[in-house]
């Protein structure tokens, strides 16, 4: 389908007899901003892990821009065009903020080994170019003045922002954000909402986010999929989801 960034159908995986995700379907339109919600343990991060090759699905199909991704290793999926952030922040702690972002440009192999060893013109010009690109991303995320700091020394909110910058540097077609608002205060959450929208608009990238903060999800997502016990229980616009009795029951239990 030409207007879909990503499509998954029938994705399932079990861990030692426990079905973590079954029959997962998802359609993300090009430049779409979608949400994946559900109670704790519903399998949301598992879905992310399936989409990024960390787990291999037992069955099902998924493709990015028409190209099948099943069986791809995580680094191959990154190369294909899916970038992600992590629920538990996974930065390169001892590297600088700038270096964390610069790493992502490696997938495009800017130069060769000999260029690096002999410091050729190609090396110098490419490094400059990459630094400029990285810096503009950092400026967007408000981290430019901290570019030489060790990533592990950043504040929690900044670390989350850095993860997003790093993922964006991969120049992906689909950006997966795993609980980007976790641990942020309300002002930071509002900023995040603006940032995510701006990212989608400026970089023409589709976004799928896992979130628990309903205000955020309902605020920016165009379509939302609801997961419970590994299965989809609802899918639709924010309004449809808010009014769906099954969703209410899953989150709040039957009265």
């Amino acid at each position, binding site marked *: 389908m030409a207007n879909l960034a990503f499509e998954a159908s029938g994705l399932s995986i079990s861990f030692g007899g426990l079905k973590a995700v079954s029959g997962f379907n998802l359609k993300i339109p090009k430049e779409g901003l979608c949400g994946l919600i559900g109670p704790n343990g519903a399998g949301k991060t598992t879905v992310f892990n399936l989409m*990024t090759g*960390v787990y291999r699905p037992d069955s099902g199909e998924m493709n990015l821009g028409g190209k099948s991704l099943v069986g791809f*290793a*995580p*680094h191959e999926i*990154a*190369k294909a065009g899916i*970038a*992600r952030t*992590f629920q538990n922040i*996974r*930065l*390169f*702690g*001892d*590297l600088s903020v700038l*270096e964390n972002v*610069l*790493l*992502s*440009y*490696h*997938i495009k*192999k*800017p*130069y060769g*080994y000999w*260029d*690096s*060893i*002999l*410091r*050729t013109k190609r*090396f110098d010009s490419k*490094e400059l170019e*990459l630094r400029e690109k990285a810096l503009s991303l950092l400026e967007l995320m408000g981290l430019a003045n901290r*570019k*030489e700091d060790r990533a592990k020394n950043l504040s929690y909110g900044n670390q989350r922002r850095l993860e997003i910058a*790093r*993922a964006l540097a*991969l120049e992906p077609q689909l950006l997966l954000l795993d609980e980007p608002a976790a641990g942020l205060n309300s002002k930071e959450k509002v900023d995040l909402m603006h940032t995510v929208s701006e990212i989608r608009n400026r970089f023409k990238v589709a976004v799928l986010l896992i979130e628990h903060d309903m205000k955020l999800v309902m605020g920016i997502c165009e379509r939302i999929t609801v997961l419970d016990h590994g299965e989809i229980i609802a899918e639709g616009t924010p309004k449809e989801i808010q009014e769906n009795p099954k969703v209410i029951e899953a989150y709040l239990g039957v009265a």
Partner: protein
Amino acid sequence: MKISQWITFGIVVASIWGLGFLFESNLNPYVVRVIVNCGIAMILAMSLNLVNGCAGQFSLGHAGFMGVGAYLSATITTLLPMAYPELSFLREPLGIGIAVVLGGIGAGVAGYLVGLPSLRLRGDYLAIVTLGFGEIIRIIFLNIDAVGGPRGMPGIPRESTFFWVYFWALNTFVILYRLIKSSYGRAILSIRENEIAAESMGIDIAHYKVVAFVISSFFAGIAGALFAHYQGFIDPATFNFNRSVDVVIMVVLGGMGSLSGALLGGIIVSLLPEILRVLEQYRMVVFPLILIVLMLVRPMGLLGHREIWDFLPKFKRKKEVKANG
């Protein structure tokens, strides 16, 4: 590289030559021997640092690759001319230079063969397997009579002068430094920092672990070849687990991940037995103790991940100017 960089390089090489001339003519030969061995230790430490410090993989078999480099190069310069007198040019400096490089390449190949299956394994398993492979390499040499078996190989042309050893140390430093401060270096460092994140950012960690391993083994082989052509004699016992541990201590002491730390570690570990002559008998008792105390008190070593120039104020200011400019 800019012309100015080539000129700087040339000046440094000339200085090394000058120093070598000075040392070899004026200093006690024993002192020269210590200094030369120190240079070889530096190459070993810098190369192991790439795997243990930068990639964060724990290799305990470095001595094995040193041995491959030593034996391969020695075979070329010593055994081949004996069997084929037409090849006596191999005993000349040029021939030896080629043999040293071939020794490095051979060690690199060995590194590839060992690394490819092993690097999928987790930390402690990798340590054991590399230890095992290091021992296997040693046992192989022990059993090849053609290279002398347990009696070793004597008669290696002793052409490794101060100059050649430190020339190679300089090359090793420059190459490894430039590699680390490049996109490839970032890829390798990301493996140490967070494998899962690195993979998700498109880094084929299995591939880069092997790359680090091969490059590291190459330089270990160079060190081994230089060593062989300095001693004039090698035997399998020289390249045993104790030697691998020595290099590990150098890297850990200096700071895992720090190139200048590796240099420092190499210097300290080489000079310590000389300074503490009285400890000769207790060397292998004191060294492990140092290691234990280091792990308990200062596991990041002297420099941690940083380089020595990160601490010099003049350089720091220069860096800030560059960073903000």
